[in-house]
């Protein structure tokens, strides 16, 4: 069932041309594979997070429904999909016109370079195409064995908790240490057999099984009282899914399903925390390559029109493409002219600051460095300047209960930066930690919301706790602040109620 096919002829020649420009510009990327497909296929891919094969679930059908309708009614159109794999796959819409294909290819090389070099992507599995397909096979097998509805219902519950991730897991973690250990073990095994196929259990399931083995040993060694307190995590973890695999009373298939969803969620996490940079970087390069190299003079108007569409500003949300490209250009400009450091910052003469030019020419080098080591938060935190906010006409808005509308609140630099950072904190999701797995000494689960000024949506918290209960199978609690009061929401299987 091949819904997409490799590019050939003119497009292939174009690819080689653009790739040449990308190399000349100093981009460093994985081997790039382009395929073309029709709009229905691109909608399918987009609905499945870029992958041709996923586990069966209605949510992909829902996204597909929206994308297809959006396309039919002319609301939106996807020009391309690019996936973080090695080799890097990108899908082009067959119906794109020539200039579109040029822009898109140049754009894709930017993403590819970013995937390969940005530090937050260092530990993502670049063979995810196969992993996702295997996940699909496994879940289909579970569905055959335990029933479609049973497995799907369980997946629904887990998806409820899918956003409870710990960004630190992307770097040095226990799982990673284990992985290293396993890899060296596997190396030995690989001499005898194909290591990948030998064991298609997810990483998380393996650790689940290890825990079981450990617990058995522990029970022999230490008394039952101590076993009770072992539930409390030494350090509060934000990796709620990981915690559940270790400590919830799960069947093996359930642990595996959680492991699968967790693995996929962590795979997408780096993209969620580098949205502005990633899009900015890709846009920077498509703009650069197009205007300096690839564009034919007859295509300029068309390019300008498309580029402007992508960069369109909105009063309701910031456009990551726009903010990203402008901020990168700003950094390049400032580092070219030496507009940074103690001397520049302490200069009080605005005219002088405006004219400041030490002819350092460090801009290009600097943005390459930035794309390597930053994520959206540190990017904004370090490089957003009052001049930039002013030039970009950024503002914050908030709800005015009196008029019932959202109104512009402030154009002040500190307010904007504060707002932007808080929106980006923890990829825009509330920070939830596992506080205690044996709360009140009753094996209840206690999660705690780290409150930074914004309350949770209580109706959603209620439903989420119900789903969590279905996995934990004992009462579950959530400590948070609501309307300035400390509160613990409690769900015991029947009733959801706040306890003050």
């Amino acid at each position, binding site marked *: 069932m091949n819904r997409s096919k490799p590019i050939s002829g003119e497009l292939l020649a174009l690819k080689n041309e653009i790739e040449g420009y990308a190399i000349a510009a100093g981009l460093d990327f994985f081997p790039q594979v382009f395929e073309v497909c029709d709009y229905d296929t691109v909608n399918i891919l987009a609905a499945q997070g870029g992958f041709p094969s996923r586990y*069966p679930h209605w*949510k992909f059908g829902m996204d*597909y429904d929206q994308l297809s309708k959006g396309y039919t009614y002319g609301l939106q159109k996807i020009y391309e999909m690019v996936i973080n794999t090695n080799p890097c796959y990108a899908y082009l819409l067959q119906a794109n016109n020539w200039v579109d294909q040029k822009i898109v290819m140049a754009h894709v090389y930017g993403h590819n370079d970013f995937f390969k070099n940005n530090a937050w992507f260092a530990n993502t599995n670049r063979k995810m195409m196969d992993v996702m397909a295997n996940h699909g096979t496994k879940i289909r097998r579970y569905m055959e064995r335990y029933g479609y509805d049973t497995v799907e219902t369980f997946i629904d519950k887990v998806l409820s908790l899918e956003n409870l991730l710990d960004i630190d897991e992307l770097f040095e973690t226990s799982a990673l240490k284990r992985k290293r250990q396993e890899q060296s073990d596997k190396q030995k095994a690989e001499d005898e057999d194909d290591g990948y196929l030998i064991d298609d259990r997810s990483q998380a399931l393996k650790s689940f099984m290890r825990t079981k083995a450990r617990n058995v040993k522990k029970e022999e060694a230490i008394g039952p009282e101590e076993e009770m307190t072992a539930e409390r995590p030494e350090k509060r973890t934000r990796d709620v899914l990981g915690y559940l695999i270790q400590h919830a009373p799960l069947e093996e298939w359930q642990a595996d399903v959680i492991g699968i969803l967790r693995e996929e969620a962590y795979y997408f996490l780096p993209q969620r925390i580098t949205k502005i940079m990633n899009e900015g970087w890709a846009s920077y390069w498509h703009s650069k390559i197009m205007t300096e190299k690839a564009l034919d003079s007859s295509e300029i108007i068309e390019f300008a029109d498309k580029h402007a*569409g992508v960069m369109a500003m909105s*009063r309701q949300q910031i456009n990551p493409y726009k903010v990203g490209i402008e901020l990168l250009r700003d950094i390049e400009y400032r580092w070219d002219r030496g507009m940074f450091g103690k001397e520049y910052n302490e200069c009080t003469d605005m005219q002088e600051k405006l004219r400041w030019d030490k002819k350092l020419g460090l801009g290009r080098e600097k943005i390459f460095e930035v794309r390597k080591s930053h994520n959206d938060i540190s990017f904004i935190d370090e490089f957003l300047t009052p001049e930039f906010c002013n030039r970009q006409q950024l503002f914050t808005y908030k709800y005015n209960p009196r008029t019932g509308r959202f109104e512009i609140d*402030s154009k002040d630099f500190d307010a904007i930066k504060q707002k932007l950072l808080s929106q980006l904190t923890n990829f825009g999701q509330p920070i939830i930690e596992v506080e205690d797995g044996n709360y009140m000494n009753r094996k209840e689960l206690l999660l705690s919301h780290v409150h930074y000024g914004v309350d949770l949506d209580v109706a959603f918290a209620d439903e*989420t706790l119900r789903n969590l209960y279905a996995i934990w199978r004992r009462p579950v609690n959530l400590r948070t602040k609501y309307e300035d009061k400390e509160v613990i929401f409690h769900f015991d299987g029947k009733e959801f109620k706040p306890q003050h």
Partner: protein
Amino acid sequence: MDHPIKRDHARFRKIIKGKIRDNLRKYVSQGSQIIPKGTDKFTVPMPTIDIPRFKFGDKSQGGMGQGQGQPGEPVDGQQDPNGQPGQGEAGEGEGNKELEVELSLDELARILGEELELPKIEPKGKKSLQSVVDRYTNIGTSGPDSLRHLRRTYKQALKRQIATDSYDPENPSVVPIRRDFRYRSSDSKIEMQNAAVVIYMMDVSGSMGDEQKEIVRTESFWINLWLKSQYKDIEIRYIIHDATAKEVDENTFFRTRESGGTLISSAFNLCKEIIEKDYNPNEWNIYPFHFSDGDNWSADDTKLCLDLLDNVILPASNVFCYGQVESRYGSGQFYKDLSAKYGLDSEQMILSKIKNKEGILDSIKDFLGKGK
């Protein structure tokens, strides 16, 4: 074999229609709700299922935007941010925003027709209603520039130049001047067309609650929409009844709540009077709809109803539609009486039971699926 996502898609459609996975029903934000926007424009939010998550309360959060404006100015009322063409990459993060589609009435009717596979209506009778329509079939010497007829303008210029001998065949340049300009202009024409009237009758006795009325309201919206797309001009009359019937305007029709008994014949009587007075069945396509919860005061009255139907209403109408809304108090007897007499496959009498809001679409299909 088709792509597996089609199965996910089919499953999603079944979930939102409430056919499977009832436990997800509460997360469905229904897409059937139509929001009028300006004249003849509607937004149709697409159905989505919100997986519950820990998330921030929306309103307290506010947001960030970019563009002109001073503090205090509202940020909405601008064009939809979805409307811009953008390079979308779903692989890069998520954003499950509810999609809203803006449609005109005509498009909406077309979608309804496609979804329910409704046949086109074959109007009966001859075209009898005269109406004056303006069609741009004429040419005039004055008008707005946007209606300028280039070919005729140049023809005129050419004529003038030949007449004044300023035309040179060796150098055939024709330059129109002001008085050569010709414009498309309209002619009034009389067109004959089919006329249709819908007569809604609703039981507003004590047993019809707000929920039942909401169902009738939604259903009649869709029926009107469809019939309007099939007939150029359509008249709509409203009758409410408990033990007595009266004709009311649209607003009253949906708002009134009476109490007391139910004599369906009172409504049928009034319907008969309206038909006899205003609508000659030879010229009009007549669609009486009656909605009730199926309670009637007595078997005698039901007999009276059947007589009225047989003698006057049915012969005059294209089709008579009876929709029975399920309510806690209604016995549903009237449906049984009608089905006993006319059967379920009658060409003249269409019966439909509407269990709840989800049943509306099926019921519309019952009513309009025969193309009468």
